[in-house]
């Protein structure tokens, strides 16, 4: 496994991010720092605030208060510079259903003012082959399956080589081979200095890929650090990431709930 090429430079920073929807604080004072070349896992239960945090970091949502910095650039103060470095993949990727995969990649490359020419063309072909989309070229994205849409979304990020990747459940819906491909790809990219923050519900992905994780629960960060640090924090040497996750985002014991549900009716 290649060693992460971190040089201590902070690539992504959340400072006290708060997002309020009516009376509900979906995200309530989230702060963390990610160094360049790191892959950080963002874990949390459904509705904990992962997507909301990521969307504030990429500038799709304006925080109620707090600051999001990409390479020390405030995304609200200097949006264009920050956005040029950023690639964000939504839970349900943003695509144009009436374009083919190749047309869509060209569209994105043009939006980011990438030079047109043989180099771009080559890179595009390589990505399409990598994600096994090359021979589906006559097809419009609207006819893609869920996993294929996820893949074209990823390809549209990678074609422009952003230095920071924010990925919301990138392996969601991918077959095991493609999921493996994404994992390997992210490791390679990180080794080359790309910073990755990815949310996921698949703890094996987090465990295999991320040196550090951040766990969010009901809008608050409840733990950050390496898995060893989390173990020390929880005081159990042998605990798996799943145990730690369940302990840190405590709810009622599921076994108890299941028993109550299946109990014979009175």
């Amino acid at each position, binding site marked *: 496994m290649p060693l992460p090429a971190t040089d201590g430079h902070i690539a992504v920073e959340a400072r006290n991010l708060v997002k309020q929807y009516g009376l509900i604080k979906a995200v309530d004072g989230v702060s963390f720092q990610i160094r360049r070349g790191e892959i950080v896992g963002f874990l949390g239960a459904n509705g904990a605030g992962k997507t909301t945090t990521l969307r504030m970091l990429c500038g*799709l949502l*304006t925080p109620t208060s707090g600051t999001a910095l990409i390479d020390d650039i405030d995304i609200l103060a200097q949006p264009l510079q920050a956005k040029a470095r950023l690639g964000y993949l939504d839970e349900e990727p943003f695509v144009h*259903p009436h374009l083919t995969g190749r047309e869509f990649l*060209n569209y994105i490359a*043009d939006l980011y003012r990438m*030079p047109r020419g043989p180099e771009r063309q080559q890179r595009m072909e390589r990505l399409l082959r990598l994600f096994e989309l090359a021979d589906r*070229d*006559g097809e419009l994205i609207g006819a893609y399956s869920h996993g294929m849409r996820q893949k074209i979304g990823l390809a549209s990020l990678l074609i422009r080589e952003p230095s920071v990747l924010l990925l919301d459940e990138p392996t969601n819906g991918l077959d095991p081979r493609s999921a493996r491909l994404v994992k390997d790809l992210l490791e390679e990219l990180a080794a080359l200095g790309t910073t990755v923050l990815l949310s996921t519900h698949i703890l094996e992905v987090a465990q295999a890929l991320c040196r550090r994780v951040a766990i969010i629960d009901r809008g608050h960060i409840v733990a950050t650090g390496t898995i060893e640090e989390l173990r020390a924090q929880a005081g159990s040497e042998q605990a798996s990431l799943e145990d730690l996750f369940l302990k840190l985002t405590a709810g009622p014991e599921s076994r108890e709930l299941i028993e109550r549900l299946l109990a014979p009716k009175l």
Partner: protein
Amino acid sequence: MNESATRIILKAELLALRHRLLKRSPVRLVLLALFLLVAAVTIGGAAFAAGLTAGQFLPNESDSILSGGFTALSVLMLVVGFPTVIATFFVGRDLLQLVLAPIRPMDIFVARLLLAMSANLLISSLLLMGTLGVGVGSGAPFVFFPLVVVLIFVQVLIVTALQAILMSLVLQWVPARLARDVAAAVAGLAGAGFYLAWNLSLRQTFSPRSRPDFTNVNAVIQRIEWLPSAWPGHALSAVIAGSLGGAAIWLMLSLALAALTIAAAEILYRRTLLAGLGVFGGPQAVWRRAPAKPASVVVKQGAGSPARAIAIKDWLSYRRDIRRLSRMLPAFLFPIGYALTFLRPSRSINSFWTEVALFGFISMFLSSALATPSIPSERRGFQLLRMAPMTMRQVIRAKVMLTLPPVLAITLLFTIVVAATSGHGIAQLAEVSVLVVWLGIGFVSIGVSAGGIDPKFEASDDRRAVGVVGTLAGLGGAFGFGLLSVGAFALFVFGSAAAAGTAQLGPIPSTPIVGALMWVGGLGLAVGAAAIVVILLWLADSRLRTYEGTIAAV
């Protein structure tokens, strides 16, 4: 207790509607309610007054008027209410859930039929007011009034069931993935044909140099008397004439027709429900294309440009979106209809100003059809633009630049054709062309802004792509801009004539000073018109910059 499935479905729908309403801010709700109230009172009042007058002064025509009214209503419902009917019967993931649940298709059909009628009922309230007016005006007996309500309700039922039948038939014979597009095209063509026919009949009715000729209208109506859509009208006029037996016969016929169409619709719907859901339940059908030729050999050079990227993307999407194309058809036929109606060769001075008004209308119409949906039609892809390193000002500019060429091309072509047929000189053609270009730029900018001020990115239909606020801003802006611009144009034209000493301005002398004053006034109006455009563009920019909504998939 066992509630009927129909009731459960309806209750869930009403609950969802309530939540949707309550989600809005109270101020907007109150404004919306006020607006609707005013609209209902004025429009309903006008319909009532028209009916009243007709009932009072044309007692012999009440049968023609009533059956014509019911027929017109049916056609209107058939065209305008169609998208709602398709949506309620065949679209929506909630329908999938109903199909999976152990519910009889009959229950689904009834629940959906009641929902689908909502749009048609709204349209029919117009006829309701008019018919009540006829009843009051002609001093009809009391039974007339409850009978009106019953008959209109029955008519709405029939038309809605007919729409469900049409959709089911399309589904049976057209390959499923094309069905929706075919249905939209059928509705669009029916609408376009209706507009054209209507325009042509108007043209005959309002023949030049004579008073409106109503015998023509009567002739048209007499031709449609045998149509089932006219039966309720016959029933009502029989009541007015005091023939209750005749009324009962027409009423029974209408009821029998309703029972027949509903039964047919139910049977067909049951057979096509599953086939239809495959198409309509998911995201919109996208045509599979044949594999493209091997990647183009010519590799383009130079830096990528966002504006060009948006242009290419929009062009490709538009070309492939049959539904949007079919909706454009009426928009393009509209101006032609107007032209046929109001234009005829003549060499009088007045015709010049009629033409100027006509160009203004066409420019405004085309712009609003093409420009208004241009930002909302990005749908979820709008988020890509927000994430890209570009400003919303650039996005707006790209959209304006993109819509301008077709609008200018069509309006200029139209201008040249009209100028050629009406025999104006080159000088006048040049003047009018400048005006047309100015109007095109302004109206397109206003249209794009209206879409940016109140975009509904989730709307699957261009006609619902802009909210109430945006629509009002766009309409108001366009009227203001149009009036000021044409006013400025008139001042320039008359000012020039005055300076040359050839103007006929009644008591005002035709001198250079007067000409200069008119020019100054014209400049003032032109600046005002430009200011409206700039303000709307600015509003759209600031609204889009702070846009925050999440855009749900599908």
